[in-house]
């Protein structure tokens, strides 16, 4: 009863606000914009009420971030020239004195290291794909492989931060925060921006929660870390001794007490607090349902591979990403560590591909068979690429590769992306020959697919209107269907 009275009061207030609004602005349009998500946002939702800016091609994003930087030369960017010139020095005419990391800057020679892996062409696009990625090769007709990504950073932390926030340093909001700030949530029981972490067998470089930080946006927009284990969201689980009925009982009494205070002080924050407790309660039911992977049918487990039932693996996270996406989570951000192949790259990358290949391809197939791929944008790639020359000692079947920001490959699929291969690198795989895609261009394009104009999605902070794309970036039309 008390709760109803409480709700009634809230409704009254809502109506009152509306009637005031109607004095100045068309109340119907504004009302329909504001009221449905009265409980899900902050003022910017309304300020940004012209969103999306145009019809979106994708509704959701799943970003499979390959942390550490996979070697494009051993996976996607086939360069027979490097095998021909195996062991010869990288010509200065190609390197052009570009800066190197401290790890190879003092090397006297830069011997070219052609891949030891076999490549073949697949699908209608006849894209070259390494033998390390048989499953990826099987879905190649759904992928747009961009061979000409480039970035400005040459070390992991700044490069990763750049990819995630549009700036190498600076505590800026993450991509996922920008998207949920711009588009809000699609469901009432789950956060709009979820984060999943996994670690492969290779050389790990760490991730940081600042990567899914809201930066200067409200902390409402920060990524919420999920796992497929027993405690999928921090503090979600009631203590063992408390069941859902007890919790309900407690929350009802709590609302009653809070209402006492509201009657006396009239601070709308009090009613807001009650609503947040209600949402927390709904999350307690909704989240375990979504994160429980054990009810998945055999065919799905087979598709993703047996590891998908082991919490915290990349495969489990891919499957969980599909489920979250299916339940209306706007942005699912995965990070998979282990691609940093400075030495023993051939053996390390084999293990990494074992972890990542099958589940990545399964996600595409799974989304497709559920009819979700069209409106779900899937992104796969690291923070930069790897050098065509060897770091350390080169032998016939072993090499390492240093960081290479000047060109590398990522792929995108679904969500309005045109399948095929985009861009060309030179025959050494060192520089871009045609159609470069800068990180800002990538961000502009991703936002565009979501129906957002990257120049208009802004937030004013410290006197300036900030964007994910800072002050540049162009939509890459060639990869949009």
């Amino acid at each position, binding site marked *: 009863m008390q709760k109803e009275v409480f709700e009634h009061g809230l409704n009254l207030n809502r109506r009152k606000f509306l009637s005031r609004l109607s004095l*100045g602005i068309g109340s119907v349009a504004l009302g329909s914009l504001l009221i449905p998500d009265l409980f899900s946002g902050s003022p910017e939702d309304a300020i940004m009420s012209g969103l999306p800016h145009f019809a979106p091609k994708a509704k959701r994003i799943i970003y499979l971030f390959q942390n550490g930087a996979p070697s494009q030369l051993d996976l996607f960017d086939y360069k027979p020239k490097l095998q021909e010139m195996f062991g010869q020095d990288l010509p200065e005419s190609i390197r052009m004195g570009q800066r190197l990391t401290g790890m190879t800057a003092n090397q006297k020679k830069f011997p070219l290291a052609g891949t030891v892996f076999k490549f073949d062409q697949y699908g209608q696009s006849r894209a070259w794909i390494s033998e390390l990625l048989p499953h990826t090769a099987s879905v190649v007709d759904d992928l747009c492989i961009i061979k000409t990504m480039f970035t400005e950073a040459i070390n992991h932390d700044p490069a990763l931060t750049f990819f995630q926030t549009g700036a190498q340093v600076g505590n800026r909001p993450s991509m996922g925060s920008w998207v949920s700030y711009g588009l809000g949530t699609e469901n009432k029981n789950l956060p709009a921006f979820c984060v999943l972490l996994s670690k492969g067998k290779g050389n790990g470089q*760490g991730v940081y929660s600042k990567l899914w930080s809201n930066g200067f946006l409200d902390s409402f927009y*920060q990524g919420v870390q999920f796992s497929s284990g027993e405690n999928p969201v*921090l503090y979600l*689980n009631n203590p063992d001794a408390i069941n859902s009925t007890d919790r309900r009982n407690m929350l009802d009494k709590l609302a009653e*007490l809070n209402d006492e205070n509201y009657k006396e002080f009239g601070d709308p924050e009090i009613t*807001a607090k009650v609503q947040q407790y209600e949402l927390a309660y709904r999350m307690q039911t909704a989240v375990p349902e979504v994160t429980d992977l054990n009810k998945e049918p055999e065919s799905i487990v087979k598709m993703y591979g047996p590891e998908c039932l082991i919490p915290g693996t990349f495969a489990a996270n891919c499957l969980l990403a599909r489920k979250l996406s299916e339940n209306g989570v706007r942005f699912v951000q995965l990070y998979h560590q282990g691609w940093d192949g400075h030495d023993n790259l051939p053996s390390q990358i084999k293990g990494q591909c074992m972890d990542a290949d099958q589940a990545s391809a399964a996600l595409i197939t799974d989304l497709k068979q559920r009819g979700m791929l069209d409106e779900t944008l899937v992104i796969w790639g690291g923070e930069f690429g790897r050098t065509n020359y060897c770091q350390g000692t080169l032998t016939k079947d072993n090499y390492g590769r240093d960081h290479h920001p000047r060109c590398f490959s990522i792929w995108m699929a679904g969500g309005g992306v045109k399948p095929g291969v985009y861009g060309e690198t030179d025959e050494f795989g060192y520089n871009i020959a045609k159609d470069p895609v800068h990180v800002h261009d990538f961000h502009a394009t991703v936002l565009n697919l979501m129906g957002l104009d990257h120049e208009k999605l802004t937030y004013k902070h410290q006197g300036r209107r900030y964007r994910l794309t800072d002050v540049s970036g162009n939509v890459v039309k060639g990869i949009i269907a």
Partner: protein
Amino acid sequence: MKYKILFLICLAVTALTVTNSCNNSEALAEGSAMPDSVSYNFNIRPIFSDKCFKCHGPDASKREAHLRLDIADSAFAALKETKGAFALVAGKPDASELYKRVSSTDTSFMMPPPESHLSALTPFEIKLIKKWIEQGAKYEKHWAFTAPKKSAIPEVSDAKWPKNEIDFFVEDKLDQLSLKPNEEADKERLLKRVSFDLTGLPPTIKMTDKFLADNSANAYEKMVDLLLQTPQYGEKMALHWLDIARYADSYGYQDDNIRTQWPWRDWVIHAFNKNIPYDQFLTWQIAGDMLPNATKEEMLATGFFRNHKYTEEGGVIPEEYRVEYLIDKTKTYGKGIMGITIECAQCHDHKYDPFSQKDYYSMLAFFNNTKEAGFEGDVSTSKPAKTPLMTLNDSDIKRTLTFINKKDTGSLTVSVMGELDTVRKTYVLNRGRYDSPTEEVAPAAPKSILNFDTTKYPRNRLGLAMWTVDKNNPLTARVFVNQVWQEFFGRGLVKTTGDFGMQGELPTHPELLDWLAVDFMEHGWDIKRLVKQIVMSATYRQSDITSPEKLEVDGENKYLSRGPRNRLPAEFVRDMVLASSGLLVTTIGGPSVKPYQPPGLWESATSGRGVLATYKQDHGDSLYRRGMYTFIKLTVPPPVMTMFDASNRDQCEVKRSKTNTPLQALIMLNDPTVLEASRVLAQKLLMQQTQPAANITTAFRLIVCRHPTDKEIKILSDYYSDQLLKFQQKKLNAESTLAVGEYPLNQKVDTNQSAALMKVIEMIYNLEESITKT
């Protein structure tokens, strides 16, 4: 959520005034009337800055049509690209190209042009510009860059309400809005408010009883004086400064190893407790090492500029990071101390404020002469402090630096500032790139704030410190007074705490801000005096009861017609829980601690290198320290803190956001810290007596800091009976309910009663009011 409602109100108010601009137009959204006299600073410049200066402002490289509108001389000059036309003609809007264009709807002619993505001016803004031109289009220097002056104390409608000068200024503004201030809050709520504001802790029941029983005229003042003298005052005041100084316990960046800057943190607490004047507080932190015969304490203070992140990633280019550190120092100084966005001039001239790129690098040059390296080796050779560093031995700590809480023997190192013997040259960096030096610059501070007179100040950090605390510097005192105000009212007199420039918001009470700033300097930059002045004011002591009328006219409470009602900062939510349950260990300072944290957080996000790869939770007393001592690992800051909007300490932060999320509800419901405190308090109460209503009342008073109403007691007692029955009937498991936390279980009290009272206390902790400053 709060914002959403506030926004609606704001929108509603604006709708009434027939405008639809609701962001940042302080002076315009206020009331509805066209001012009699249109002020450039308060009415026009905010429009120009937001809509025009991007292309017609200080940044020479982006200037369109050679037109510059931020300076009168250029704005009145004949237009270069339109013969015979003028942007502004005083007294004649129709002859002013500017007016013609902003009022036009022709997309090829109008300003701002559609491709700028800046929305068109509102009808109200256009009318303001018209009237301003009619009245002579008079320019004024930006308010924040002119020295503050004490204006006369205004006359007010009700002279009985004010208790000190602050109140006259506040009431004057309320008079203009036809609002009446609230009466003083009831004693219990007032004591809770001032206790959290001065110490970050709830008042004890003993204090409350004493205050309730004291009917003398200065009963409140006695409490204030008492609180100001507790050592917890220093902790409370330090917290905001730690945000500004981006204090943390690790180096940040990928491997994120441990460092020991906490002796600097202990100094900050000490400095506030000792009430070191603000000018000295700043001088030591900026240039303590350069003072004649610098003491170790003065040198330690300079740790302020060494708290930023340091990379230990193998393969970085050292100079790139050395420059990055300079950029961070410059930004921290600009935002935290000067309240300016000078960092915008790193790559180009500032687009809104009078800071050129050269000004920026001249400022950066002050920091460019330290012995710091860009890279000192990777995580395998990581040390707890980096060059230049200071070693603190036991005798230092025993004799002079007694405030450093060091328990073990052995030496302690802290990163501090230290100058090179030679002068390192500084250059303007093209587009802000470390490897693109252009013109050489000498250390200097921006002339537009206060001329850096080299006959008065040396061209080094000491000179910068002197310039900063020069009483003619228009920003230093204002910015700090505003930050302190924000700490008490939840909102600064200037809302944009870190931006007093053209794009920042205008002060709601400019005369009050200036009066306080001047008064602060006149009284020796005495921080405690300023704090006492604020909490003694009638403005601060108002009840926070609100009414539909007040919500409508001033939803955000920027005009202060009611008391401040804000959620406690993250650290004090924890402190409240620990203090009210009696678990709090009040030790001050020392190495940061690792209390309960959900498993796997550090482990799932680490490279595996360094000593912080795994979270090794502490035990015993370290589990019950104040929130400000929780270990901050930059790449994975403590989750409860960030969920309650604490700074992640990545960069200088002058103002925390205020959110209300379901994740916060989940913390209060399920965090073992809260559950353990509930258990411990329940058992503590039951040791004294078993009468439920009495125990509930005591628990309520400890947590909510007031007596419960009869109705509240009834609801809680019913819940207690209900729970007790369920425990007795084994419908709920008492043993497992009590099995939380490492604090020993008391076997002497009844298990079922313990569990039932524990549940009631959990409920009290979850009240909105419990974590709110009422």
